[in-house]
């Protein structure tokens, strides 16, 4: 296990395999011991409950999945009263709370409320969801908005402050730098790409809302390039996700510059995908007599 221990800013992780926000829940405890994960990342919470988008919300493309969930969640009060106690009870690994909001003030308000709650190791600030009108992505595409938001949040906490970036930008490095310069302690990337699917037989969009978030196997090369570009531009540790299904995929992301990875869509296909990935990495590092920090960012050309 020691060979694959890693760090995400202020938190030490026993291994580099975590789970992507929105794709995972305590339901997976039926399939493996969740405490074997590096960390547990919650679904994104907003201040008020959100009903989510009208269905259909899903469509599987030739390679990967479109979703238009729309951040359906019970809201901050119910999260604190009902969901967080369950997480505390079942988990001994770091809990990272993902949240989103529609203004800097609202982001700060949520963070302050969560600061009063024990047993949270860090926050993943979701400024990159493509499926909602006001929250998130309007921040994530603008380096000045990211700078202002991070500047406001970072003095409010001593916990890990992860900014989750969108790939739907021209220059992800500039956004990453804005977060780094203003006190983020790590970065998570990538959130979903924007995508769409239309039924050629009748011209109807497969997703009710039209444009959706694209995840899974098809986005891996895009995610890898984003991680590489970001790792070249900043010193912050990177929690990488985007089409990771196997331990071999994970290794690619370490070479590109990631300190840890998250399994997302793959969990829907194989519920024990995170554990298979973890065990594969343990074997590989053992067999090659290497430790994780030795390969992070060491892609060769």
């Amino acid at each position, binding site marked *: 296990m020691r060979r694959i221990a890693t760090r995400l800013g202020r938190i030490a992780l026993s291994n580099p395999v975590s789970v992507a926000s929105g794709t995972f829940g305590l339901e997976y405890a039926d399939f493996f011991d969740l405490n074997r994960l590096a960390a547990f990342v919650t679904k994104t919470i907003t201040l008020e409950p959100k009903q989510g*988008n009208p*269905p259909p919300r*899903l469509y599987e493309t030739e390679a990967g999945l479109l979703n238009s969930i729309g951040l359906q969640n019970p809201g901050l009060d119910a999260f604190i009263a009902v969901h967080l106690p369950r997480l505390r009870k079942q988990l001994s690994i770091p809990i990272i709370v993902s949240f989103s909001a529609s203004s800097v003030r609202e982001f700060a308000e949520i963070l302050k409320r969560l600061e009063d709650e024990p047993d949270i190791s860090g926050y993943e600030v979701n400024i990159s969801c493509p499926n909602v009108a006001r929250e998130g992505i309007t921040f994530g595409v603008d380096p000045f908005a990211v700078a202002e938001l991070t500047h406001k949040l970072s003095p409010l906490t001593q916990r890990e402050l992860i900014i989750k970036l969108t790939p739907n930008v021209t220059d992800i490095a500039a956004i990453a730098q804005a977060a780094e310069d203003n006190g983020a302690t790590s970065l998570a990337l990538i959130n979903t790409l924007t995508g769409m699917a239309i039924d050629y037989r009748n011209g109807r969009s497969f997703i009710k809302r039209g444009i959706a978030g694209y995840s899974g196997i098809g986005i891996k090369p895009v995610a890898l390039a984003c991680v590489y570009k970001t790792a070249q531009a900043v010193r912050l540790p990177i929690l990488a996700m985007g089409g990771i299904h196997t331990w071999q995929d994970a290794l690619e992301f370490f070479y590109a510059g990631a300190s840890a990875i998250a399994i997302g869509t793959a969990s*829907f*296909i194989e519920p024990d995908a995170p554990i298979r990935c973890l065990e594969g990495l343990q074997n590989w590092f053992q067999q090659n007599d290497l430790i994780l920090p030795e390969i992070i960012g060491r892609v060769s050309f």
Partner: protein
Amino acid sequence: MNLHKQAVLSSIENINQSYFTLTVEDKEVAELSQAGLFCQIRPRSSSFPRLRKPISIYDVDGDHIRFMIKRIGAGTQGFAQLRSGDAIDLIGPLGKGFTVPAGRRIILISGGIGYPPLFFLNKRLKDAGNETFWLHGGNCSDDLFPCAELWCRDGSSGNAGLVSEGLAKRLPDHQYDLAYACGPIPLLKACHQICQQAGIPLQVSMEAYMACGIGVCHGCAVPVWERGEPVYRNVCSDGPVFDAALIRWEEL
């Protein structure tokens, strides 16, 4: 507790050009199976990552669970190419099923691939001492399977027309305590209107595109009323069976 099993395919049989059945053996899954539940399955041999297919339980016989599948796209075609002895990766049985009362008169309505869950339900209802009458409809003769009354849109077999017409015709002359339906949304909508007018409680099994199958991703949302509030619930974990009176049909 959701089971994740590698089950052995004991047989695969073609019903006709469009439909086939898979029979797998697993004692635990068979014991936990109830009418209306489903499994998330994928061929063990598949290497390219595709989502699992949610397939309703068609029948249970001892330790054997049977699924009936319609060839639609590449995913279902992948199952059609399996051979007995191959492994199926299975999560289930999942969801909340039909209620099975005792000593009632019950009418069942299915359309197309809505047939298999009602086959299992019909068996369980009869075992529990209920009296049932089952109407089934389809677009063409391939979509028709044994039941009490058949309807076919192209007129090639059974009664010509929609199965919902059969329901509307039958209700005035017969007394039913309950109705259960599974099939395409337009059929379920029609059943809801007809049963509501007749004052018969209706349970419907809903279908939706699904990712996790266990209530995590909220992808398979269905619009319902809950304590007077419009909300979305998961077909996979809150359903697939819902009280038709609680579904916001106008949103579908």
